[in-house]
């Protein structure tokens, strides 16, 4: 399980953020001692850091600058200051992404998983049961057969496969589609999923996508 460190001085946000991340299968650590932030980060060695700019004792940007001297842990800057200057500054200090408060939680999750994907080089194909799914080509392959998916189907299938253990809500799928410039509505989403199902059924995988009414979908 990936470990994410939250550096944020606002208690409520901290709690909710941990819960959000834990609901999505991440382990979270909350930084408590801001005075000795750098050492505590290095000691707990997280896989990713969510860093607020306005924190006590030390400015987030400075902390990032110091951190980069010794470590290349991915860092997402989170802030309520939304001026271009802050963004440029953070990126120049070596932040991997920048997101302004108030953020859409689903988008935050998508960005985090995008960074992890970038770090893990061999995520181009995902295996499940006895088939492999080549994400960049959009092809599902097993010993006998091979089918190709449309862009929307690729996005949906990829999201479901990356979250095998839990139910993915319609809203999450929709957000991911919109995030990839596919502005579909709910009807189109249903159509896309039933097409994906019938393509999978053609290969012999019936009922692989389970519908949970009113909640979302899950890969079995």
């Amino acid at each position: 399980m990936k470990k994410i460190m939250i550096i944020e001085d606002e208690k409520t946000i901290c709690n909710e953020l941990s819960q959000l991340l834990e609901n999505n299968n991440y382990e979270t650590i909350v930084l408590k001692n801001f005075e000795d932030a750098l050492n505590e980060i290095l000691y707990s060695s997280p896989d990713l850091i969510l860093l607020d700019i306005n924190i006590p004792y030390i400015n987030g940007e400075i902390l990032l600058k110091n951190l980069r001297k010794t470590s290349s842990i991915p860092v997402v800057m989170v802030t309520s200051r939304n001026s271009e200057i802050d963004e440029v500054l953070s990126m120049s200090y070596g932040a991997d992404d920048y997101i302004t408060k108030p953020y859409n939680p689903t988008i935050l999750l998508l960005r985090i998983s995008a960074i992890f994907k970038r770090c893990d080089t061999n995520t181009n194909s995902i295996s499940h049961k006895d088939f492999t799914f080549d994400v960049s080509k959009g092809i599902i392959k097993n010993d006998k057969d091979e089918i190709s998916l449309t862009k929307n189907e690729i996005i949906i299938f990829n999201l479901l496969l990356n979250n095998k253990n839990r139910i993915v809500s319609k809203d999450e799928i929709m957000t991911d589609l919109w995030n990839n410039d596919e502005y579909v509505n709910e009807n189109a989403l249903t159509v896309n999923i039933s097409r994906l199902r019938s393509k999978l059924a053609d290969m012999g995988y019936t009922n692989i996508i389970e519908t949970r009414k009113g909640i979302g979908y899950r890969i079995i």
Partner: protein
Amino acid sequence: MKFLKYVKDNILNILIYFSTLILICLMLGAFKIKIYINITIFIILLFNGIVIILLSYFRKYRFYNSFVNNLEKLDKKYLILETIPEPNTYEEKIMVNSLYEINKSMIENIKLHQSNINEFKEFVEMWIHEVKIPISSMILKCHNHNEIKTQEFSNLIRRLDNNIDQILYYVRSEDTEKDFIISEVNLKEIVRNISLKNKDDLLENKITLKVNINALQVNTDKKWLEFILNQIVNNSIKYKKDNNSLIRIESVEEKEKIVLSIYDNGIGIPESDITRVFNKSFTGTNGRDKVKSTGMGLYIIKNLCNKLGHNIYIQSKENKYTKVIIEFGKNNIYKF
């Protein structure tokens, strides 16, 4: 400075001088002084009087004429003190000194107001950043406890966030140069952010969103353009028709510019209102009758567009469509 007016101002002095002159000549006549001596004295004194008038006129003329002329030519009249010639006479000195004092106290007064305004703006900006923290906690809370009721809360919070953004950009749009960075910005990315921001509203209102971005890169400030587009899309959602709603965002490249248009098939704007929609506090019939409006949204947008150097205009037919068009220049002056 007119000579006749000057004479008129000094008419009392002149009258006293000439009546004294005539009195002297009459007295000399009464003492039986020879007539040619009398005439010579008269002419000398007359000449003397005219010279005095002319001399004092020209001395004043030098000072006041340049004063009046400079004042006329100056764009910022309060800078007059810098242009007037060195005062020579007592009168001129009094005037210049009083002007100086007046100017000084006025500048102090303006400074006071300026610093009050700046303090207020700083406070508002700080406050906005503060208030965004509880908003983001609320958004996270809603997301973590996903039930039907939190959906409604999410919508309300989003509206609140939009309103707060509006103040932030209003405060910034007044004196903003400090706060924008022009760079090459990807339109597709901006449209994506805006769509994601309004996704729930669009889906809930069953509005079809069509995006067709052909020209990708424009020179602008990312945050500001996002705010501008967000306001426009918000308006499109607000003033939609009841069914078959559509929003179409397109960009095309033309010879000297890149044109971004946001089209919706909503209720449109009445012809009588369309020229005034960018005015401060203008609400129009739509803003008054159908949806409550502050009348500030489009004004702020126009202001920001002016600062960024983009042209913005609006085309509409009542009950048919509204189309907002933003033109980005293709020149590279802004780049660095």
